[in-house]
């Protein structure tokens, strides 16, 4: 697994699309960072830029000292060469492939033996061994997300982008998968718009609103201005 202690991501990007403007400049070195913000804040757009799926209008992105995007120097490393895994709320498993083949898709470069070993390791991590031969249509939503996470982790990414991949799951499944993910020690940027969830996480938080980074720091510090709203939410929940 990548060394989370040596992890460092810095990004300074400006991007305009259909009347929406994103201007984000930040640097993270913590293993687990939450990107928090309301719907429409630009979280998914920011993640797609980091993943290399969108080229920003201008900006630079560096991961562990390597330049992934630099519009001035015309550097745009392809998504598959960034060492970044990306899982979204939509599992997006390849429907014509089995769970095992989905996980194998990104590790074609490994020998057959190494590939099998890696797939078994990930299936075991997510308790998905019985699902290996099934196709996505034969899996439940939670099972699909487990395979999607295993698929993203298979190539041993240096950094993981998680765009609310567990949002549709029940609380227990969500906690199990989060614990499995955090046990891996792969640095991750985890998107959430759930204030209560973020408050309870022991993580650094980046607050994105209307395309701008408004705060960055420990959850309790950064979310202090939202405390009253949070209390109302928790009270209502009880």
């Amino acid at each position: 697994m990548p060394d989370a202690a040596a992890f460092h991501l810095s990004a300074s990007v400006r991007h305009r699309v259909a009347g929406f403007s994103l201007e984000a400049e930040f640097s993270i070195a913590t293993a687990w960072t939450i990107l928090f913000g309301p719907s429409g804040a630009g979280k998914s757009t920011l993640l797609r830029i980091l993943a290399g799926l969108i080229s920003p209008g201008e900006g630079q992105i560096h991961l562990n000292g390597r330049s992934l995007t630099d519009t001035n120097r015309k550097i745009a490393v392809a998504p598959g060469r960034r060492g970044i895994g990306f899982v979204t709320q939509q599992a997006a498993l390849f429907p014509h492939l089995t769970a095992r083949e989905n996980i194998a898709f990104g590790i074609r470069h490994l020998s057959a033996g190494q590939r099998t070993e890696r797939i078994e390791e990930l299936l075991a991590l997510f308790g998905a061994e019985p699902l290996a031969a099934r196709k996505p249509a034969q899996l439940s939503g939670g099972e699909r997300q487990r395979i999607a996470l295993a698929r993203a982790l298979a190539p041993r990414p240096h950094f993981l982008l998680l765009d609310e991949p567990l949002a549709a799951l029940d609380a227990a499944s969500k906690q199990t998968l989060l614990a499995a993910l955090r046990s891996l020690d792969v640095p991750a940027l985890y998107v959430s718009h759930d204030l209560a969830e973020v408050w309870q996480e022991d993580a650094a938080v980046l607050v994105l609103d209307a395309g701008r980074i408004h705060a960055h720091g420990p959850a309790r510090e950064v979310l202090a201005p939202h405390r009253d709203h949070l209390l109302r939410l928790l009270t209502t929940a009880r």
Partner: protein
Amino acid sequence: MDLQALWLTLRLAAVTTVILLAIGIPLAAWIVSTRSPLRPLIESLTTLPLLLPPTVLGFYLLVLLGPRTAFGRLWIHLLGHPLAFSFSGLVFGSAIYSLPFAVQPVVSGFHAVDAALIDQARLLGAGRMRLLREILLPLSTRSILTAALLCFTHTIGEFGVVLMIGGDIPGATRTLSIEIFDQVQDFHYTAANHTALVLLAVSFIALVVLYRRNPRSWSLHA
């Protein structure tokens, strides 16, 4: 019925279909993925044969393939005879004429593939060729079959382009549709009817094969 014409027609349709799939699939992949400003121009050119009267297309192809153009002279130099009024010429004209039927269904099929799957394939390191081979093609088999059947049946039934480029040479360029024309001209209506029934049956069977593969979208029954 002229079995020679039947064999020529089937051979023409098969060769044209294979060539069109070989050209149409990569062209469709380029159309759905490119950011080139040339895309609307290329798309228009591939769709143009759909709107042009076959005789207009046939006329221009006849001129293009003849000794008056550099292209025509090159072919004469390479083959030793003009491309027009030969089976190769018919294949060339049929491929141009049926090109929209090869490209449009495949473009639609590729467009229908969920963009999230393309993103994931790219994130997992798939380049253009692997994306086409392992994601787009397997998820667009219905569109590719549609394209193949449309190319085949459209080529079997074509008349104007074949007549303009190939004329009416028995065994070389006389297809079933030309034969029907000849039979009607000679007042052999019974023979024309038999030949027409063969064309009708081939087209009908192809459509049944095509629609049998279409899934039922919804049902009124539990």
